Structure formats: structure tokens, C-alpha cells
């Protein structure tokens, strides 16, 4: 390809390490507001802990609302990172090389964000550690039959493994940065983080092997995590939750939303840091095709849910879906359908797939649509359970909105720090797809 001819090993280092230059005014202009919103979210949380969960909009029978929506949303976002780095690695899809680092960073930060919500949503968050099986004087353990405990294990495993995976990928790049930077504190930091990487054949030998195993582990993990999250719902008996389709449906939705977020994040980065030579239109084309696929799966799930509800002949089940499309929350339902199924349709045209602006706009709608998908599944199902006497309508309060905004700020805060501290494009792996420098080729 044409642009690759202009890229050399040295230029890759130059271009990518240049991104770590001193933060500009623009960066600060983005970063300080995120701090502000994180602070506001924190304030909301403290207020909520102090006053009681009632400051959120929860009510009988909607015991889960925006927080769990946020949780599933962020776990979903977290998925494409591992998908892009691990699964596409196993499939040797080269279009992952330029974006996988950003996607992995996104994964780690999204899990970090998601992991907050199960605690935020607790009635007594100061007792959150009771969810872990630690030895205690009460001689009490945890209930391994609870899907929430599966969540605890799945999410913490996912956070650990994706962080390690992220870090392993970074080691050679950190070494490259280490070799470049001059300022003493940064030099020390990168020296420590690089673990003394030297790029010897011995290191590479184990490194490539280990990386493969990580990818092989991360792949079933990523599928399991969102399956487990979906079982939070599917394992219960609530109409609208109790369905076997949830695991694949959630995994597809997670990949869908994650890719959407990757595009949302990479488009501005590519523009600002002039990474057009790295993140190419071909890369976007590849992602867009994946979006088409997952959008199709998600759309299919929306349809088949209705069919199953009707076919089951269970009045509660059928009413639930009838209500989703026509009840008080119908607007949210249709936002979801339009954003997730209708708006991605133009991606079937190659011109759209290779149009950065169009992709960016579509990706934002996907993010919105997928947030509402979770909201619909959680809130609408809960508001119309089995017993009509216990039906109720939930509306979020300012506290929940504040914490949600805070969670986005929290995520972006990490992401902005990441952009300025760690190479956002993999230096070593970019080089792998460049032609190997050989004397013969030169002469």
C-alpha cells in the first residue's frame, strides 16, 4: 500500500513518541473539565451514600436503573478492546495493528469505570467487600450460585487479564520511549515500567509465545464476561430478562458498542495527532464491516425477542414486549432500534465505510443506542413484572445523571492521561507490518 512505503522503523518511533510531548493547551482544556465532572460525580456519590439510595430515582418495582445500565454499557465498551487485540490477533487481521492499543486502553479504562457501578448501586456500598470470599470471623462465605458473584469473578478477572494484556503489549514500546526521553523523572518511570526490556532474541522468543497465550485466554474470557453479565438478567425469572438468547445477544451488542466507541475515540485522535498514515481507511473499513455484522445480530435479537414472546404464549412475556414498543418507554425503545439497526444501515455502502465523518456520526448514534438498549432491557422489564399490582414507572434523578456524566468524565480522564503517557499506537507491532529492512532489497 502506498502510505506504507513512506513509513520506516525510525519514522514510526518519531511519529508515535511525538504524541507523548508536553501536553498542549488543548489537552488541558479537555482534561480539566473531565476532572470537574469526575468531582461532581464523586460529590453525587458521597451525597447518595450519606443520604441513602433514595436520592436516585429507584422505586418499587424498578430496583435497578441507570447505574446498572451504565455498568453494562461500560462492560460492553470494554469488550471491543479485547476483541480487537486478542480475537483479531488470533485471526491475524492486520487492520487491528494500528488501533488495538487505543482499544485496549479503552478496555482497561472502561472496565475500571464499569467496576465502580456495582459498588455505586449498592444500598450499603461500605460493605462491598462482603462480596468477596475472604476469611472472616463470621465463618461466612459468599453464595457462588448468585450471578452477581459470577459478575464479581468475571469482572475482576477481566480487569486483571485485560490490564496485564495491555501492559504486556506495552513493554517493548515503553522501552522505546525509555530510550528516547531525556528528562530524568520520566526516564526513571519508563525504565521501571519497561522492566528492562532490551529486545533480545531471547526476550522476543518468550514474549511472542506468552502473547499468543494471552490472546488465547482473553478470547474465551471476553465472551464469558459479557455472557455472565447477560446472565445477571437471563438467570432471573422476570419477563423480558429470562431468555436464552441473552448471552450471544449481549456479546454481539458489546462488540457492537465497543467498536462504536473505538471509532468515536480514534477519529479525533487520528485527526489531532495526524495519524492518517497509521490508522488507515482500510482499518476503518474493517471495523465498519464488523459493525455491520454485529448490528445485524443485534437487530435480529430485537426481532426474535418479539417472536419468542409471542410464540411462548405467556401473557406476561408477550405483554412485556408489547409494552416496550408501545408503553411509556416506547420512545426509548424506538431510539434504540433506530440507532442500532437503522442508522448503521448505510454502512453497507463502501463509500460510507470509508467516509470518516459519516463513521464518526454513526458511531456516536451507536453509543447512544446501545446505552438505551441496556436501559430498555433493565428498566422496562422491571417496570412490568408478573404481578400487575406492583407495576411502576421509573425516572432517573439528577444524582444518577450526575454519576453517569461523572463516569464518562472518569473514563476520558484516564484516556487523556493515557494519550500523554503511553504510546497510543503500538510501535513494535506497527513495525511488524512494515517491510523488514534488508540490504538486498535496497540494492
Amino acid at each position, binding site marked *: 500500500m502506498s502510505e506504507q512505503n513512506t513509513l520506516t522503523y525510525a519514522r514510526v518511533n518519531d511519529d508515535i513518541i511525538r504524541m507523548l510531548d508536553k501536553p498542549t493547551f488543548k489537552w488541558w482544556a479537555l482534561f480539566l473539565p473531565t476532572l470537574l465532572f469526575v468531582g461532581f460525580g464523586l460529590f453525587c456519590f458521597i451525597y447518595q451514600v450519606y443520604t441513602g439510595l433514595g436520592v436516585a430515582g429507584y*422505586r*418499587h418495582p424498578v430496583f*435497578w436503573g441507570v447505574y446498572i445500565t451504565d455498568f453494562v454499557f461500560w462492560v460492553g465498551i470494554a469488550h471491543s478492546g479485547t476483541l480487537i487485540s486478542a480475537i483479531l490477533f488470533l485471526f491475524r487481521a492486520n487492520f487491528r495493528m494500528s488501533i488495538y492499543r487505543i482499544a485496549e486502553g479503552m478496555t482497561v479504562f472502561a472496565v475500571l469505570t464499569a467496576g465502580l457501578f456495582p459498588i455505586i448501586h449498592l444500598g450499603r456500598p461500605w460493605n462491598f467487600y462482603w462480596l468477596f470470599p475472604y476469611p472472616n470471623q463470621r465463618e461466612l462465605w459468599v453464595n457462588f450460585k448468585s*450471578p452477581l458473584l459470577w459478575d464479581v469473578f468475571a469482572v475482576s478477572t477481566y480487569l486483571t487479564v485485560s490490564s496485564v494484556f495491555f501492559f504486556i503489549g506495552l513493554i517493548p514500546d515503553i522501552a522505546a520511549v525509555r530510550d528516547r526521553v531525556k528528562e530524568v523523572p520520566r526516564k526513571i518511570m519508563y525504565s521501571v515500567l519497561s522492566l528492562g526490556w532490551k529486545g533480545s532474541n531471547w526476550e522476543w522468543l518468550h514474549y511472542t509465545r506468552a502473547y499468543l497465550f494471552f490472546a488465547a485466554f482473553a478470547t474465551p474470557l471476553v465472551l464469558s464476561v459479557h455472557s455472565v453479565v447477560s446472565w445477571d438478567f437471563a438467570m432471573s425469572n422476570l419477563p423480558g430478562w429470562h431468555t436464552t438468547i441473552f448471552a450471544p445477544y449481549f456479546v454481539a451488542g458489546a462488540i457492537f458498542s465497543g467498536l462504536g466507541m473505538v471509532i468515536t475515540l480514534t477519529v479525533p485522535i487520528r485527526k489531532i495527532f495526524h495519524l492518517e498514515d497509521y490508522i488507515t481507511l482500510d482499518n476503518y473499513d474493517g471495523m465498519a464491516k464488523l459493525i455491520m455484522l454485529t448490528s445485524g445480530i443485534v437487530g435480529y435479537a430485537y426481532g426474535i425477542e418479539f417472536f419468542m414472546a409471542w410464540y411462548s404464549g405467556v*401473557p406476561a412475556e408477550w405483554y412485556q414486549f408489547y409494552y416496550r414498543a408501545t408503553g411509556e418507554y416506547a420512545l426509548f425503545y424506538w431510539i434504540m432500534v433506530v440507532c442500532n439497526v437503522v442508522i448503521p444501515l448505510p454502512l453497507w455502502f463502501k463509500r460510507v465505510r470509508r467516509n470518516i465523518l459519516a463513521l464518526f456520526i454513526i458511531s456516536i448514534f451507536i453509543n447512544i443506542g446501545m446505552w438505551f438498549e441496556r436501559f430498555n432491557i433493565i428498566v422496562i422489564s422491571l417496570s412490568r413484572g*408478573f*404481578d400487575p*399490582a406492583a407495576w411502576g414507572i421509573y425516572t432517573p434523578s439528577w444524582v444518577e445523571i450526575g454519576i453517569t456524566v461523572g463516569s464518562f468524565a472518569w473514563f476520558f480522564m484516564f484516556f487523556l492521561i493515557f494519550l500523554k503517557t503511553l504510546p497510543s499506537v503500538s510501535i513494535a507491532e506497527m513495525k511488524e507490518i512494515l517491510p523488514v529492512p534488508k540490504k538486498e532489497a535496497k540494492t
Partner: protein
Amino acid sequence: MSKDKKGGLKRRDFLKIIGVATGTAAVASSCSPPVEQIIPYVIPPEGIIPGVPNYYASTCRECPAGCGVIVKNREGRAIKIEGNPESPINSGSSCAMGQAALQGLYNPDRVRSPLSNIDAEKLRPLGWADAEKALTQKIEELRGTGKTGNIVFLSNNITGSLGNLVDQWMEALGGKHIQYETYAHEPLKEANKISFGIEKIPTYHIEKTDYLLSFGADFIETWLSPVEYTKQFSQMHGVKDKSVGRFVHVEPRASLTASNADEWISVKPGTEAILALGIANEIVKSGNSPNGGGGLRGLLSQYPADKASEITDVPQEVISQIAKEFSSRKRSLAIGGGVSVTGTNATETLVAINILNYVAGNIGDTVDFGDTLSISTADSFQDITSLVSSMENGDIDILFVYDVNPVFTLPKQLNFKEALGKVPFVVSFSSFMDETTELANLVLPNNTTIESWGDYSPRESVHALIQPVMSPVFNTKSTGDVILSVSGQVEELNGKFTQTTFYDYLQDSWKEKWAGASGAGDFDTFWKQSLEKGGYYKDLPSKTVSVSPAVASLKFSEAEFIGEGDFYFIAYPSYKYYDGKGANKPWLQELPEAITTGVWSSWVEVHPDTAKKLGVELGDFLSLESPQGVIETQVYVYQGIRPDTLSVMIGQGHTSYGRYAKDRGVNPIDILPLATDTKSGGFAWLSTKVSAAKINKSEQFVQTQYTTTQHDRDIAQAISLTELEKGIHHEEHHEADFYPPREYDRYRWGMAIDLQKCVGCGSCVTACYAENNIAFVGKEMVAKRRDMAWIRIERYFEESNNNAGFQTRFLPMLCQQCGNAPCEPVCPVYATYHNPEGLNGMVYNRCVGTRYCANNCTYKVRKFNWFTYKWPEPLDWQLNPDVSVRSKGVMEKCTFCVQRINHSKDLAKDEGRDVSDGEFKVACEQACPAEAIVFGNLEDKESKVSKQSHDDRGYNVLAEINTQPGITYLKKVTQDKA
């Protein structure tokens, strides 16, 4: 008792007096315990063991029915009111109002000491000695001027010793004792006088009938003795040998009572007399009358069915059908009363009902004139009106007000409030700052029934004792003591009373009863026995009565209505607030009204067609205008009311009476005209027509159930009578389960709820609040569906082929204690689990608040503590020390009163035996007047609950989810044939 600066009571002082060992109602979450003090007794009271409850029999005075109660006392505090099984009136059951009497006792807005405005602009606290002196001075002043007859003691119907004392006192002072009851049932007395020559209100025996025809008598709500009649009704209406009694209710609106009827006959307001006569005529005409109509044939022939149908809006075939059923059943009974028949023709209506009973041959044992109600002795409405005019003329110098709130309960047109202003000295004995007390010059707060000695005789056969269960919460004094003390201070009265305390007076007057009672042993034994049983109960022979021939010449008319409006207006008494008395009790405010499930407010019931015509929907506000005034209230669209009628519940709309009652809803009495029943002179409740107009205001209608139908879920199931008689074939089918079924050792606690018996009165709900420290949360929180009730009455309107076109079904929904509970496996920390005795345990202190259990609960019976709810002191004194008080972030729910289970097991263990069937009752079961709830051990095959659970009508709610509930519901019976 000293008070701190804010006027609140110091907890320590209370403890000092009653000597509680330890009493912090600790909260489910606390890090390090604060320094706790243990205050020992100075001198230990006899018979009190800290930690062990004591029970005292007493009598409920929340309404005139006078049910016997047993008050549970722990460490010197009354913590629960239960029905007294010995009482012949309520036989162990109680109603919501009775349960809530505790919140009157501990009401934070009680008058905490005597108040006076003699030397001040406003009422100011003063000591008892000063207060009594002030009263003595006034009396002596008045006597000095020689105007002796100008003292009036206005009270409710107080029978028994206090009534006698007041009578004697007034006699000595030359004053007058007027007994005012809001619902005095004068037309009923008058009608009985006309029909039988007895000016009394009889007792009824609904349980002996198999066909009950009620004309407006809301006996499940407020009529005469609701707990007793609900109990009788459930016996009559419950399933016995595959048959059920039939109940037809005639009223312009489907009240709670009507909702429990097999047929609700919507009648044009004020025409019930004609309907009754029309039915009687049909009976006579068809030759079904055992006495052939006696001498009334001529009278009755004036009311042929077609004419009656035309006047009453009741189809002719319905009239003849009722006539047929009424006369063909073995024992039928027609009763009448309640506000909807209390128009200007009320007496005539009730005479007509007597005639109906007569022609059907019912005057006999189901109506008992041998034992008449004491409410018969209340003074007439005319006495009240003449009192008001004397007051207006300045003829009254001192007015004592005792346990009545006439400013609130009398129609505005009577101008009681203005007249009160013309009385120079008004003394209120009320313990609450109600609308009347607010205008008093001297407030001498009375002890509540729970704090004082007394007696009450609701009917001739029952002399019930009231005994203090705890020392007064505030600086209040029993009115009997005040009267005796003041009498001792007034010079001329010296020596009039030999007793110095009311307790002595009471005992002296009971010595007379002892003398009258044969074979009662010595007085002390008699006294002790009476205290233990809650009173002295006699058996009175029933009296035979005969219809007086004068009836034949009576003229029967329709009620007359004042006002030009389009709508008949019914202001109906509430089973939650009675005449407004209950409105200051948060439990009652938060108890969803059975039909609307509305809480904490007022509303007007509007027929859907009318609502459409007026352009209003649920939650919109209507302005109702009568010649006497306007009220604005929220709309509840209800198919159970005639399109030409609007109705508003009495009880709300207080302008005073404490934080829970004040400025809440409207008082419909305000717009009632001063009309009276022409024959009896009693107040005519149904006498106005109002105009209604939509106003530009709309709010959320705060209720606890937003749906009216079951959405095909088959939750409250019914079975037709035909099917019931045929017998239900139970298919024994064991579905393959993934896991083996659970097994139990000694106990599996279970419950059976008979939907045919449940009347939806909500007693169980309030009893549960009282027993289990359930927080009341207020209107704003209920609006967000955050009510904390562990048991709720689900109300569904089902389409039906009866005359009304719909049937109301009630279903008490509480934790089903599922065998395969969906809530249990989802809890990550085992905070909820299945206990070896079949309970679905909920460990509050282990709960971290994921709320997954509630999401997964099929029945949605789990409640979450969104905040740490507080009980304003001293309401928190009522908290049951045997039940944890839950704090924020914790799930809670019914566990079948596990504290009672544990307590009984503990007692059984003392004796080395197992808990036997019926040894204890859970709170809801205990309260239920209809005896619809049965609790017990399912492992014991002989237990009542085991047998009921295997009844043909038994089913599990939402059984298809395979939750294996521990509660079996018994299907309601729809009477597809008469």
C-alpha cells in the same frame, strides 16, 4: 416529667419512670456501638420481667363498636394492640383503626400538658394544679352569679362509669350532658320505634343467615360494629360444604362493603325505600311470604315492580329476582343504614326494610332486640342544633368538650365554630389539638384509653373494662380524675363524691355490677376476672317483636335534595378515619384505601362516563359546588359509582389536628346542607346535589396500585358456584425438576388465605406495620412507590356477568415463602436463604443492598429501605424490640412474623414439646376480622392450615413459575346462580 427546651420529652425521664432495662431500637447497621446506658428500676414493679412481654385486656374506643383488645406491653411500653379473643364483639380480631390507636397514644402532636389562654393571647402550657384551679374558679364564679344551668358537657356517647360520673357532675352543677355521635343512627332507632315500638338499635346475626340484603349498610367499614359484622359475614359468606351464603348490596356507589357483595345493585340515591317495598310487594304477590304480607298487602300493592323499577333505576327483573331469592332462601336478612340511605326519608327507608324483613318472615333471631346497642342512647341531632343556638344566644357559659370534634364533624351551615366563639369559657379534654380544641380556653388533656382506667358498654350484654397499660406518655390526666379533683375543690360540691380518684369511682360502680351478677364470688375475684377477660359479659335472652299496624298507614317518599347541581353527593364515612378521628395516624394515612388504593389524601369518585363528560381523568381536580360551599379535590375514575353521583370520603381536610392530618385533602361535610331526616330529626347525610366543574389543576393520584385488571395473569382466581358444587378434579402431576424436592423435619410454616373471606379491609396491613416496625414514608414517597408495606391488598376489577358488570377481587399479597424462592440464589452474600422450617429468611444485617432479590421476586413483595426512615419521638416508643429496625440500604420483607415463631418455639422448648397448631398467630392472621388467613405448620397434617392448603379451591399464585409457595390461596367463589 421535665421537658427539654423544645418542649420534647426527655427519653431519660421516661425511662426513669418506667424503668426500662435497655431499649435502644438499634439499627441494622452500626459500626461501633455508642455508649449505652442501662437504667435499672428503683423499685421493680411486680410482674414485669424485662424482655418478657405482658398482656393487658382493655377496650378499644376508636369507634363506638367497643371491641375488646389485648395490649402487649414490653418494659412498660404498649407496643401492639391485638383483638381480645374473650370479647363477644370482635372475638380476637381487630381493625386498622384499632391497631392504629397506638399511634394516637404516641402521637408526636399530642397535647403534652394542660394549656390555657386565660391570661394570654394564645394557649400556653401550665401545670395541672393551676389548670384545675382555673377551672374551679370559673365554676365558682359562675355559681356566684347564680347562672347554674349554663354549663354543658358535650361528649361522645360515653356509657359506663365515666358517663355516670359526668351525668352526676352536671347534675350537681345544674348543667347538662349532651352525647354527640357523628353517626348516631337516629333513623334506625326511629324506624324501629315506628315498626316495632322499640326505640333501640338491635344487634344482628349475619352469620345465621344465608342471604343478606343490605341497603347501604357499610358493615365492613363503619356501620355499627364493623369487626363483628365482618366476622359474621365471613362465616355466612365463606364456603361451607360446597355452598356459600349470598350477599346483595344496594347502594348508589360500590363501597368496600358493596365490593364484597355477590351483586351490587346501583340504585338511584334516596329511593331505597321504594326498592325495598317493591321487593316486598313482589314477595307477597308471588305468594312467597310466610305471613302473606300481614296487614301490609294494601300498602305494598302501591309499589309494583314496574313502578319501583322506574323510580329506583333498578331493572324490574332484578327486583323480582331479588324478591325470589330473598324469600326462597332458608334464612334471609335485610339490613339498612349507612350514609347513602340517610337522606331526608331515612326513617321511611329503614321502616321499609323492616317491612321487607317482616314479609319474608325474618323478624326473629337474626335481629336481636334483646341485646341493643348503647349508641341508641346518644342524644339526638336536634339536641345539638338547640345547643348551638343556645351558644349563639350566649346562653352557655361553660362548655366542656370531651372526645368529640364538632367543629370538624358538624356541617358548616350549623355555624358551630362561630357559636363556640360566643361561649366565654370552653374547656377541651382532648389530647389532640383538633379544630375544636384549638378554640378552647382551657385544655385539660385526657389520657388515651391505653393510659387510663375506664369502662365502656357498647351494648347491653357487654360491660368492657379499660385498664391502663402504661403510665401516661405525656403530662396528661384522665378526665375522670380531673372531674373528681375539681369537684373536691369546688366548695359546694364538697362531699358530693366520696371517691378521690376515678379508679375508686370505677370500682365502686363495678360493685353494683358484681352485686347484679350471680355467683361471681367475692368482688376482688369478680374484678380480677373481669380485668383478665376484658370485661363482664352477660347472656341476654332475645326478645320477640312484632310489627306495629301503624306501619301500614305510613307514607313512603323519595329523599329530597337541596341544590341545583347535576350530581347527587355522597360524603361517606371512612373505615380508616371514621369521622376524621383517624386522620392523625400515619399508619391509617398510609393504609391504601381498598377500592382506590389511594393514600394520604382525598378524592372524588367519578363514573367513567361522567369523567368523560366533564373532561377529567385520574388525578385531575374537580370543583364540587353545593349551596353551602365549594371543595376542590382529585378525581378517581371508578366504574363502581352511578354516573349521576359523586362521592368523597369523610375524614380528611383537617385544618389542625397534628402534622399528619393538617392540610391534607378536603372535608366533604363542609358542603353538606343542614338537612334532617323528617321523621327522626337525625342529620341527613345524603341531601345535596352538587355541580362539578373541571379546574385547571392536576396532580399524580398517589396510590399503591396503578393497575385495575390482572392482565390475564390469573393472580386472584375465582371458581364458579356450579364448579364448586360439582367438585374440582385435582390433577396430581409431578413435573420433573432439575433438583430433588426439599424436605423438612418438624415444621414447615405455611399459610392459607381464603379469598372468599377476605374483604380487603386492610387490618392485616396495619397490624403488620405495628408488629414489624415497618416505616411509614409519607405521601411524597408513596408517590414514588416507596411504601414499605410487607403485605398489600391487591385489588382487581374483573369483568363479570353480574348486574354491575364487574366484580372486585381482593388478594392479600405477602412474601410467599417460596420453596424454590427466586430471590434466594441471586443474593451474593446469603442475606436471604431458605431456613430449615420453610421460611424465606431475610438477614437484614447481612444485606449489602444489591436489590437483585427484589428484581427476581415473582410477587414483588420485597421492600427496600431507600433511606433510614425515622419515627418522630415518641412514635418510636411503639417499635417492637423483638424486630430489628432496618436502616438505609437494606432489603426487608415478611418472614411470617419469625419473632413470634421463635418466641413460641422458645416457650415450647421450656416445656419440652413442639409448637402446637394454633398456639400462636401471626400478626396479619390475628388481626383479620374475616378470619381469611390461617397460619400454621404444614408438616403437621392435622393442622388447620394443612387441611386448608389441600382444599379443592386451593391454588398457588403464578404457580407456573414453579416457586413452590408456602402460601395457598383459596379461590373466590363467583355466584353464577342464585
